[in-house]
């Protein structure tokens, strides 16, 4: 996965909740994790047409306490399903983990970023270095990126994809432990 994205900014305010706002609660209760099922419902609690408007490479900009509530992974899988990036002022602890596990490139601690962008701005984010460029306004900001080990999971496409890749590599290299 390319850790640099350039696309439209979709700004959401503070206090975006996982259940209800990012994804209908019923998918968490059903334990649905299929991206194809979850994608069409992303952010429909706030903007019912959001899944139709958004394109791969676009970036969601969240305010404080993004993805709060009971940390269900469904909303983050929805973001991953559309191939979006995520930049937030702060994110709930469980959702931070879920974003990594779902393979969502994100910047978790971008203080004041909501004031620097508007929905529709063309922005570019390098998630490996933490640089955000707002091409519409001609501004640039530096934020703290994730750790290399976390970016490695995201680049692989999430925890499951990374695990599968590791298992495949072990098979290829015949590194499986020999029977006693």
């Amino acid at each position, binding site marked *: 996965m390319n850790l640099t994205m350039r696309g439209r900014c979709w700004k959401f305010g*503070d*206090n975006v*909740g996982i*259940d*209800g706002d990012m994804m209908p*609660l019923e998918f968490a209760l059903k334990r649905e994790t299929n991206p194809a099922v979850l994608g069409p419902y992303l952010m429909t609690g*706030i903007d019912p047409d959001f899944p139709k408007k958004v394109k791969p490479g676009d970036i969601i900009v969240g305010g404080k306490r993004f993805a*709060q*509530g009971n940390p269900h992974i469904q909303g983050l899988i929805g973001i991953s399903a559309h191939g979006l990036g995520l930049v937030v002022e702060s994110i709930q602890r469980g959702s931070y983990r879920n974003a990594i596990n779902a393979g969502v490139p994100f910047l978790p601690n971008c203080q004041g970023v909501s004031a620097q962008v508007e929905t529709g701005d063309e922005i570019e984010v390098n998630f490996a270095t933490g640089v955000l460029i707002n091409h519409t306004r001609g501004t640039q900001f530096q934020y703290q990126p994730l750790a290399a080990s976390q970016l490695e999971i995201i680049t692989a496409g999430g925890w499951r994809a990374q695990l599968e890749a590791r298992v495949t590599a072990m098979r290829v290299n015949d590194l499986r432990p020999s029977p006693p």
Partner: protein
Amino acid sequence: MSEKQKPGISGGWLVAPAMVWLALFALAPLVFLVTVSFWTASMFGLTSSFSLQSYASLAGDSIYIRVLGNTVKIAILTTALSLLVSYPIALFLASLKGKRKMLFVILLFLPFWTSYVVRTFVWMPILGRSGLINATLMSMGIIDRPLDNLVFNEGAVYLGLVYVYTLYMTLPIYLALDKLDPALIEAANDLGASAWQTFRKIILPLTLPAVWSGCTMVFLLCCGAFVTPRLLGGPSSQMFGNIISSQFLDAGNWPLGAALSVVLMVVVMLSLYLASRRFGFQSLFMGRH
């Protein structure tokens, strides 16, 4: 001592099932919990050698004390709010007669026939961004965009806890009010006492043991709550139960989770000991003088 009063072997045997039940389901888990708190955890599992590592890491991080303090604060405030809500409900129920009383008692119990989690979840479609309250306010033209701070904060945790634990406060107060001798209230009225004086000098003192008993129940349940703050709370309104559950379920650090549980138990027992010194053991646990 007469034959009737003499404790026989058969009497001891009658108590045995209860003793076995208590030993198996109360004492044994507690002993196991305390034992595990002195073990250590690694990525390969638990090591059963004696260690104070969990208690040391607990003492070395102030966040545990902060969350514990926040938990006790939430438990005390929830207990007080529950009392404010429950006493008028209990008074109302006790004032009813016949079929109406039965109907309202059933209505009070009705939500409690479903699970605790469902009763907590139900607040999300009410308080959420596209929930009932926001939809109503917007349709009435009071707000033009949904309020996003009705849920996932400490206020929502209080609301959820009061709702799910109210019955434990209402029931003992209602039973005490229901058993109250009407002659006492009539006598107060005959002697010219106002409604407030009758409540303050007759009804309240006679129902105080039930109040303390209800407070004890709600306080105990709130101290261990973790579902409500997890579903309705924000990042800063997490309770001690959430840290304990995350150690057991997410981090796999059972010894630290057990040590945190032991600390919570000690704090709760200490609180109840101090309360029983002030209000009496019988009041707190039996609901009587």
